[in-house]
């Protein structure tokens, strides 16, 4: 390998899936000029990581789902470049949103009224969209996104098992304490739904021994005390007698046991 060929390989080791190879390594070992250059531009390449990351506003998501809804109703099928598109799209989206609102209002009124299947369908579509957003956000790498996903979960039906299961997974496994805490709170509506209350209660009990962070342990204990969940008593008693557990948490477990009496 000569210097010219080596130049095109210099960034290879910094790009996922790219490999610089043995020839490149051998060339660097024997060429000080390339070695210096490789180290210099490699450092510059890495420092690009430090540039502030721009985040879109929440409007982007809002507008996307409005656009998708409008498109699905066949109102956004016109060929439009950006600048011309938006004034028309805004009207279309506004009209679609108004239709959606009317549809939802009537949909809630008629519930499962089979005589108005299109309204029931519309309502179900919106529910599915919310579920999709909540689940998808809770899968993201960024903790702030996962937190937003947890917030979205309040907008789904509390009978939605899939979202409930994802919240439980978040409580048990999310590496971020704030996200775990938010997920504990977000499980509350599910304990009030006939479809999910048993599963939700059991999930909270089972989450307790998995937590090691005192603040999350206390949040779970408070939740179980609030539910007066007596099935949690054996685990709470174990915690009270476990000297390895934070003393504040043990006191809280003791308090919860008294409250359940």
């Amino acid at each position, binding site marked *: 390998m000569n210097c010219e060929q080596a*130049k095109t390989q210099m960034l290879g080791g910094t790009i996922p899936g790219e490999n610089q190879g043995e020839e490149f390594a051998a060339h660097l070992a024997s060429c000080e000029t390339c070695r210096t250059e490789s180290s210099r*531009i490699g450092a510059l390449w890495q420092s690009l990581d430090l540039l502030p990351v721009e985040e879109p506003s929440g409007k982007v998501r809002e507008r996307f789902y409005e656009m*998708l809804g409008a498109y699905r109703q066949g109102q956004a099928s016109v060929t439009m470049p950006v600048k011309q598109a938006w004034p028309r799209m805004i009207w279309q989206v506004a009209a679609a949103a108004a239709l959606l609102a009317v549809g939802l209002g009537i949909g809630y009124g008629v519930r499962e009224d089979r005589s108005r299947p299109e309204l029931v369908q519309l309502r179900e579509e919106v529910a*599915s969209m919310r579920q999709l957003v909540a689940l998808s956000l809770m899968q993201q790498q960024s903790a702030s996104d996962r937190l937003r996903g947890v917030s979205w979960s309040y907008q789904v039906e509390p009978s939605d098992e899939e979202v409930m299961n994802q919240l439980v997974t978040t409580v048990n496994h999310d590496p971020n304490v704030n996200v775990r805490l938010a997920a504990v709170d977000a499980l509350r509506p599910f304990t009030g739904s006939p479809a999910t209350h048993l599963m939700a209660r059991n999930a909270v009990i089972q989450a307790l021994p998995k937590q090691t962070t005192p603040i999350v342990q206390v949040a779970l204990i408070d939740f179980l005390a609030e539910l007066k969940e007596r099935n949690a008593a054996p685990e709470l008693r174990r915690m009270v007698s476990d000297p390895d557990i934070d003393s504040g948490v043990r006191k809280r477990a003791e308090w919860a046991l008294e409250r359940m009496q």
Partner: protein
Amino acid sequence: MSRVFSYVTVSTLVNTRDNVVMAEVGAGQVARLAVLFERHHRALFRYFVSMNGNREVAEDLVQEVFFRMLRYRTSYDPAQSFTAWMYQIARNAGVDQVRKRGSAQVVDIDSFVDRRAELVSASPGPEESVSRGQDLALLRRAMDRLPEDKREILVLSRFQGMKHEDIAEVLGCEVGTVKVRVYRAIRALEQIYFALEKEKAS
């Protein structure tokens, strides 16, 4: 409750490959586009902001890209890389937008870039402090001053984490050419950076 959409499970959200999801959109399950939106809209936004420096325009363009995906959904070939296809659409949307803006008003690109540079130096943030040997405000100005083609290839390879193969598909060139162009772009960035550093010192 019967589902109108295909039932979205946690595992499909995590594991289903983009090209499979896009194929489903093409087959009529347009709501599945939301999965792709959630996965890619931030990266697309960063691409557009890096290219045109305007958040509002970048948000419009993100919207336009997903709109075009819907319009051209049946033309997507699942054997093709979804990322490459998406950035081809993004580039076209960006070019159309510049054309449109250009016809509405004459924009002096140099003065636009210079204005961005002034804004950066007038409002020093935490990144102004020298970190790991690099002055980040200078680095950002250097990025802004890079010629568009070089900035684009750096954005695609560095910020979007795209493979050289996908970039080659987006730009319509050979993988070897991509490697050379990435190298030239980072060298050009280095030269601009050092020039700015000299300006600052003098």
